[in-house]
């Protein structure tokens, strides 16, 4: 126990250094926000300056009306929430049994999951579309959600597995003593414990789904009313020109939900097993 004052000073020093770095980190976002209220001349004429010379709020109304954002926003939320829920549930379940149970085929599953992580997925959209067509899932939100929630997400399974492998056995045993069955143990003890992982998976899946472009595009070819925000942003990039300020406004609108989600979930990022064990 050296002088506690010095440790506190040290922490403030850390904060100051980190804040300086963080400013550089968020600068481009501030730039996007400021671009969203500039006109094209303002964006390209004032370079790095953040303060708009004239405030062009109509960029937002243009994004909202022209790009049909209200409808796209609803679609995006629906598709993204559906995908995130499926991903969390199925990946947590799979990660749990992979980490804590020995069963036939387990090693094979882990091996195949790990190996397929490295396959470039850029072309998967072609066979996925063919499959969805055969199964009659094209042109529906359900088909889109399944495709988004089904492909990849090996990372989520691995993160859950890595986490559950570290959970002390005592917790489970205590649950069994209390008479909890398999499902109950998982739902009541294990899933809540993995808050930090769930928060991570939710944020990352949300992000990936929200910004995904080609799958939502293909699944809404003949149902334009089902399009998502990322697809809706098409309208800003034309053959010979891009509506930069409209795009910036649309981008600012579309990243609000993700930022809000991150702010809400971030307490889970610093909340560990230890606390749960005590309570």
């Amino acid at each position: 126990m050296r002088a506690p004052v010095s440790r506190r000073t040290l922490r403030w020093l850390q904060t100051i250094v980190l804040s300086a770095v963080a400013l550089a980190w968020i600068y481009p976002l501030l730039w996007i926000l400021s671009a969203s209220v500039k006109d094209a001349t303002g964006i390209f004429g004032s370079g790095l300056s953040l303060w708009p010379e004239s405030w062009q709020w109509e960029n937002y109304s243009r994004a909202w009306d022209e790009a049909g954002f209200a409808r796209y926003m609803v679609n995006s939320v629906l598709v993204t929430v559906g995908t995130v829920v499926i991903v969390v549930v199925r990946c947590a379940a799979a990660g749990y049994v992979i980490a804590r149970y020995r069963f036939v085929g387990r090693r094979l599953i882990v091996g195949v999951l790990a190996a397929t992580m490295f396959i470039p997925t850029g072309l998967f959209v072609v066979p996925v579309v063919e499959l969805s067509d055969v199964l009659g899932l094209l042109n529906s939100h359900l088909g889109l959600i399944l495709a988004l929630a089904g492909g990849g997400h090996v990372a989520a399974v691995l993160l859950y597995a890595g986490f559950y492998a570290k959970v002390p056995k005592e917790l489970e045993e205590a649950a069994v003593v209390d008479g909890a069955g398999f499902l109950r143990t998982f739902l009541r003890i294990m899933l809540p414990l993995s808050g930090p992982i769930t928060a991570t998976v939710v944020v990352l899946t949300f992000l990936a789904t929200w910004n995904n472009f080609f799958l939502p595009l293909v699944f809404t070819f003949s149902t334009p009313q089902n399009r998502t925000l990322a697809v809706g942003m098409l309208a800003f990039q034309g053959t010979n020109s891009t509506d930069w300020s409209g795009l910036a406004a649309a981008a600012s609108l579309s990243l609000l939900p993700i930022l809000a989600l991150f702010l809400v979930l971030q307490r889970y990022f610093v909340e560990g097993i230890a606390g749960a064990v005590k309570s």
Partner: protein
Amino acid sequence: MAATIAHAPGPPRGRRVSRWVYVFVLPTLVLFGMYTIWPSVSSIFYSMLEWRGLGVDRTFTGLANYERAFSDPLFWGSVRVTVLVIVVTVPIRLAAALLLAIMLNNPRLPLARLLRTAFFIPVVATTAIVGIVMGFVLDPSSGPVNAALELVGMPAVDFLGSSDTALSSVMVVHVWKWLGITMIYWLAALQTVPVDLYEAAAIDGAGAWRRFTHITMPLLVPFVVIIGMLTVVETMQIFDLVLTMTGGGPFFSTLVTEVYIYQQAFAASNPNLGYAAALGVLFGVFTVLVVGVMLLLVRLVRGKGADA
């Protein structure tokens, strides 16, 4: 990683439970089969076709696409660039993000919440616009980076426009954009380290470095492998950023494999899905091999460490 999880001790259970085990993996297996295994198998099939653009004519050509790929200097150049990006950026991201996460994991650090959000922000910033901002930041005549260089008497650098520096610049921006993701992986991993251990160690008088090497690091080892692999995979799929910042140029200096595959499949003046699929399969096999060898090495080293 397969290794780290494979040794997890499972409580012995009766038959009643094992049914639940299969119920739990089933959804993942089904979805995985539909949306990963099936496309992978299809890709292998596509890779043996002569399949141009609009897909009516598909003729089976066996290994012709692979023969062509083996002698395609642009493909191997792109693999070289991709490997270089991985080798350089992944260790930097892992180390910098871990440092950041440890600092921001301290609940007593002032403004920790705000700072965590700040470092996460580039992750959500729209790539198409990031390209424009970075164009201004790295501008060879009026950008702030070059202004700073000028202050210390260095010549201006055309960061994105010269084939000597474009790749390094893209790598820096790539690390900047995605550091926040690695940070939250580490934050999640750090939550498995019991706080009481720290408190006990602190009372014993252990300094920050000793606590890190003796408590944090050993507990994080399994996650190092998982997060390392995730970061490698994410880096392999570096795509949007390159497309908006340099489009693979100038003169192929930033042409990564995913961009090249995309160009062959969809953007070429005469798109060729069969050939693109062959490139994808080759690149996948190549990476699985490289990662497999790396994991084997990790295992060997750790096995030796355990024996000693």
